[in-house]
């Protein structure tokens, strides 16, 4: 548990808090969608930090799965915003 990793983890949590502020305060639905997408990418980076911190390999698998699932969810939300059908 080096102090550098604690510093980086605190910075990433601060960035995630700013994303949560935009999710709570965003006036329209696209603002919230943008913030959710960015929050997913940030959490994939945080999983990389956990992998360094603990030395375990499976956190990187969590990061890969998280980024892909976040991508699919963002595409689904964008299609919903566009007002089309999902099978198009």
């Amino acid at each position, binding site marked *: 548990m080096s102090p*550098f990793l604690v510093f*980086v983890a605190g*910075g*990433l949590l*601060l*960035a*995630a808090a*700013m*994303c949560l*502020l*935009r999710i709570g305060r965003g006036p*329209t*639905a*696209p*603002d919230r*969608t*943008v*913030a959710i*997408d*960015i929050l997913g*990418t*940030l959490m*994939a*980076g945080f999983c*990389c*930090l956990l*992998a*360094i911190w603990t*030395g375990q*390999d499976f956190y*990187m*698998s969590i*990061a*890969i799965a998280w*980024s*892909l699932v976040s*991508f699919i969810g*963002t*595409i689904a*939300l*964008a*299609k*919903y*915003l*566009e*007002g089309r059908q999902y099978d198009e």
Partner: protein
Amino acid sequence: MSETIAQWIIGVGLMFDLLGCLGLVRLPDVYNRLQAGTKCVTLGTCMIMFGTFLYGVAALDRPQMAVQALLCAVFVLLTSPVAAHAIARGAYRAGARLWEGSVIDRLGEDLHGVRPPAERAEPADQPAAVHHFTESES
């Protein structure tokens, strides 16, 4: 030595993440927020993953973790612009308004044929392609 390089790369990536999220909070428009957030957070997270790759190769001696970090960076680099494009298109179709200071709207021109006033005027120095009738022809 390589651990120091990895720490510098992770630190710069953290700085990009923080500035991108600050832009997400501060900017006035959906499209501006999307631009600031997506670009900066993609670059910052990819730098954090590349630093994880360097850690896994040099400091921790875990090659599986290093390869998975590179793979994750490639995935983020491929999927994030596609997601941002889809969000921007969906937001425009959903009717999200542009900021009042925006100067150009190319997608609106393509969809509705609305051109900004600066481009609506005809160019002045074009030669007139109109045939002028004279008195004898009429």
